[in-house]
Each structure stands twice: as C-alpha cells, then as structure tokens.
C-alpha cells in the first residue's frame, strides 16, 4: 500500500522562447500508489508544464523522474511511448477523441497498440469500461456525435483501458457542467479507492481539489504547500 507510483526529484524546466524563463524550480515530490492528488495554482504557475513532464511527453527538463520504480529520464522517445502506452492514462481538458472512429474503437486503440490481449478480449474490456461509465449505449456511435460530457467519459474509459498504474488529468472537468463534473469526480474517487489506481490531476476547481486525498499547491514554479 505504501509503494511509490511516481517520484520527481529536483525537476527544473526552462522556457527559452522568447526569453529564457525558469518555469519549474526544483520540484521534488512523491505520489503513493492509490493516491488521488490534485495540483492547484494560478494560471501560469507551471502546473500543466509539470504534468506534461510527469506524463513523459515533455523530455526537455533537468532532474529525475521515476514512474513505477523505473527511471524514465533519458529514455528514447519510442521507449517513452511504450511506457505511456502501458502505464499512464491521460485525460485532457478537451476530450480529444478520434472523430473518424466509433467510441468503442477509440477506447480500444491504446489496448490494440499494447497488444497484450486478443482483439476480442480488447473489445470486451472496452465495452466493460464504457458500461462502467454509463456510455455503453453510445459504443457504436462515432465519437463526434456525442455530447461533451459523454465524450469526456469515453475519454476516461480510453485512459483506463490498459489498467495503467497512473492516470493523469489536465483539468479533466474544466470543460464540463457541475453534473458531469460530479460524475467524473466520483469515477476518479472510485478508481483510486476500489482499484488502487494513482490519480494526478491539475485543476482549477477548488471543490474538486478539496475532496481529493492530497493537494499540491504551486506558485511561480515552486511547490508552496502540500496538504
């Protein structure tokens, strides 16, 4: 229960355009398995930048990052892609589904990429996830035809399909009304409590943050408070 899902050590990040600017200054923290962490702070404090570094998509930083006890700093882009595929689920502020595919396919694609299960098993698992979020009836509709809330739920189902150790959210409720926000929050809470999945979200929603296990508060590229 006390194992570490993610560990950041002395992360420093600069933006070089238009002038060199230190956006993250010596960030160090750990997240335990099954923990539900919210990162909050004013716009421009570097919280999204931090999240993209944690997600392994941004590789231009100083310091060290460990995901699932594996040091990921310095790995090649293709190795990182494989790690993201198997261990990290990502939920964006805007749902970002692939509109040419059905919802079911959207959820299936990362799992097909992983290739751990057969096509049929993947299909069943994807269907299960959709059911879990109450959008199974939309499974065969094209992603573009759904409402925003439904799309975000499909996107979360997609993030979960490979049973990732960590789920990251970049303002996952930022674009949703209060009813859908509540649904998404409940889902996250269930995932962390029932399935022991680690959740790290960046959010502006104070209510959302307050109800999570831990809040990391950032200002000007530093962590100023954790509680």
């Amino acid at each position, binding site marked *: 229960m006390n194992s570490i899902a993610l560990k950041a050590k002395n992360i420093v990040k600069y933006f070089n355009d238009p002038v060199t600017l230190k956006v993250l200054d010596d960030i160090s923290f750990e997240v335990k398995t099954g923990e539900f962490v919210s990162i909050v702070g004013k716009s421009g404090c570097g919280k*999204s930048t931090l999240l993209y570094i944690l997600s392994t*998509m941004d590789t231009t930083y100083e310091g060290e990052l460990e995901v699932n006890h594996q040091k990921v700093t310095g790995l090649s*882009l293709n190795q990182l892609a494989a790690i993201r*595929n198997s261990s990290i689920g990502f939920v964006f502020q805007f749902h*970002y589904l*692939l509109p*040419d595919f059905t919802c079911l396919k959207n959820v299936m*694609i990362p799992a097909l*990429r992983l290739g751990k299960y057969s096509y049929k098993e993947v299909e069943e698992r994807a269907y299960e996830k959709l059911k879990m979020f109450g959008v199974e009836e939309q499974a065969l509709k094209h992603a573009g035809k759904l409402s925003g809330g439904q799309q975000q739920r499909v996107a979360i189902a997609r993030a979960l399909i490979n049973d990732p150790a960590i789920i990251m959210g970049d303002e996952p409720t930022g674009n949703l009304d209060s009813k859908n926000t509540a649904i998404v929050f409940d889902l996250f809470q269930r995932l962390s409590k029932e399935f022991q999945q680690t959740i790290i979200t960046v959010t502006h929603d104070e209510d959302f943050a307050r109800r999570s296990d831990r809040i990391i508060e950032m200002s000007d590229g530093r962590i100023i408070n954790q509680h």
Partner: protein
Amino acid sequence: MKLSVNSEIAFTYLFARKKQTVIAALGVMFGVSMFIFMQSLMKGTNDYFEKQSFNTTPHIRLYSENKVADTHILDSFIKDASVKILVNPKQLLQRQGIINPNGVISRLRKDPELSFITPQVTTNVIYTSGSVQLNGTVAGVDIIQEDKMFDVQGNMVVGDFRDLNRVNNSILIGKGIAGKLSLHVGDNITVASGTGSPMIMKIIGIFQSGVKLVDETKSYANIVQAQSLLGKDRSYVTDIKINLKDYNKAPAKAREIETITGYKAEDWVQANAQLKTAFKIRAMILNSVVGVILLVAGFGIYNILNMTIYEKIKEIAILKATGFSGYSVISIFLQQAIYIGLMGAVIGIGIGFLITYGFSKVYIGGPNPTSGTLSYIPMSFYIPHYVEAIFFGLITTIAAGYFPARKASRVDPVTIIRG
C-alpha cells in the same frame, strides 16, 4: 479480419476521405496505365522493326573488305629501324570474296552458339526486259537455308521458291521489279552482271518483303547460277551469313569471328545503327512523358497526405500521448500512401492491359507501300512491363508518402495538446 492497429487506423482514415483517396489513386492509376501502354507500344514497335530488319539482314554478315595500303611490304624489304611513310595511300583491291569459303564455314559450324550459316554470292546486275533496263542486285543463295533464316515463304506473292533448285536458269524477283518491267511468273528476263556474260533467266516466283527499295531491286537465284552469272568458279563466295541462337550476343560474337577468320564481320547492330538510335530516342521521349505523369501522381499523394496530417494534427498528438511511437505514426501514414499506390497500380494494370489490347486491334492498313507489311498497331504484351509499372507506381507513392509521414511522426504532442 486480423489487422494491426496501425493498418486499421490507416484504413479508417482512407475510408473517412473516400473522395480524396479515390482521386489520389486515380492519379497513380493514370500513371501506371500510361506507363504500360507506352512501354507496350514502344516494345511492340521496336520488336517489329527489329524483326523487320532480320527479314533482310542476318545477325552477322561476314565479308571481305578492301584495305588501305600499309607499309608491311616496305618493312619486309628494308629491314632497318627507319620509319616508312606512305604518301596518299589508296584502297587495295583484294581478291574479291572469301578464300576457301567451305573451310571457313565448316570451322564456324563447330560453334554451338551459331544456328545458321549460309554462303551467298551478291552481285550488282542490270535487268533487261524488252527495251527497259533496271539496276538491281542478285543474291545467289541456298534458297532452303535462306527460307529458314529470312522466311522467304512468308513474302511469296506467287510461285514456289523451291523451283529455284529445280528449274535451270531460274530467278525469283521482287514485286517492284515485276511491276516496273511488267513481268509475270513464267516470263523470261535478261540479267547482266559487270563481269560475266548476260543470261536469260526464267521467273519462277515473285516476292514482296514490304521494303520498297528491296522489292524494286532484289532477286534471288541459285548460288551456282550467280557464280556463273559473274563468270566465277564454284568456290567464289562474297558473303557468309550467320544467325545466332541469341541475336543479342551478335556484337560480341562478330568480334570473335573477325579475329578467327580475318574477315570483316558486321553485326546487325552496326548494320542497323540508325534503328538503334531511333529506339533510344523513342525510349527517352516516352520515359520522360511517363516520368512526368508519375511525378504528378506523386505530388497528388503528397498533397493529400499533407492535408490529412494538417487536419489530424491533434489526433496524431493524442495517438502519441496514448503511446504510439514515431515509427507507428510513420507506419500509419505511409500505409495510407501504399494502399493508395497499390489500389492505383492494380487498377492501372487492368486499364493499361485493356488500352494495350484495344490498340493492338486497331487496323492501320494491310501490305501497301506506306505501311509495309504492318496491318495492326504493333503492341507487345510483356510481363516485365507490368511488374515495372507496379514497381515505379509504388516507389512514387512511397516517396511521396514518406515525407508527410515523417513530418507527422515529429509532431510534438505537448505543443499541440497545450495549444
């Protein structure tokens, strides 16, 4: 259906944009079918002319050539180190013809690469009928061998060429001669060479080769008759005609025979130099046209994939975020290019074959002075053309697809997703 996820995404994108996909494939199809059509037409025509040239020229012609005087006689008289210079050297008349032709022939017969060897006596003559005279040449041949090499039978208009061996003093004349002198089979014609006495010969047949110049001058006689026409003995032979099993080896073989026999061996490539040049120029013109068509098709594919990538840049970012590597992204977009190329190539092959077949049925007039023996447009159905067409079609599409695909693979998900 079992498909890799990359292929599945590639297919979905192709089907989501049916119109563009079809238009891009049409471009490739057009290029491939034109490639096949033009190659078939070119090879058909070239083959026709090559075959046509083998109707009159052998693969190798061996003959004795006059030589320019050199200093070797001087050398044998004045045996010192002085340099001898001949002023204004002239051509020396050799003893005309090939010395000991039977020896040369039996020696050549030992070479397994040669399929036909036949001696010939060629002489310039004047044909006379009534008061009209006509210049021409008589080829004294073994007509049976001649038929095997040049298909005399196929050119016969009237008569039986075998009568050349059966009827004494017989001659087989070209249709042009028959027309100009208004002669028919069974008529007599006076033939005079420069050296022997004129002979009256009986016309046993008329042939038409399709080459006007040949039909108006050439006639065949028995080799013995030609020898006596020239007033020469039975060992007098001017040319030895040689055919090979593989005519493409003729130039090399000709050099070999030249070294062995010491006579001039002229291969068909030298004899038809203008033909080869024409082939080359034709190939250049047609290949550049086809090249441009394929290039345009390539730009079409490049354009469409570039647009797709521009439109789908967010989706590419998402795919990368969910764990698709750069290789996978290249694979997705390159596969789209390849499927477009394959689709175009396969349809193009079909259309190319149909066009080729259609043109091969176009009648352009039977044997007449303007078209020779050509009655249909010569088209060749040559499998390697189709293989090449697929190859070039695919190369174009892969090249056109690779650059957009590489661009897609370099999309940085962070910049795109953060906006």
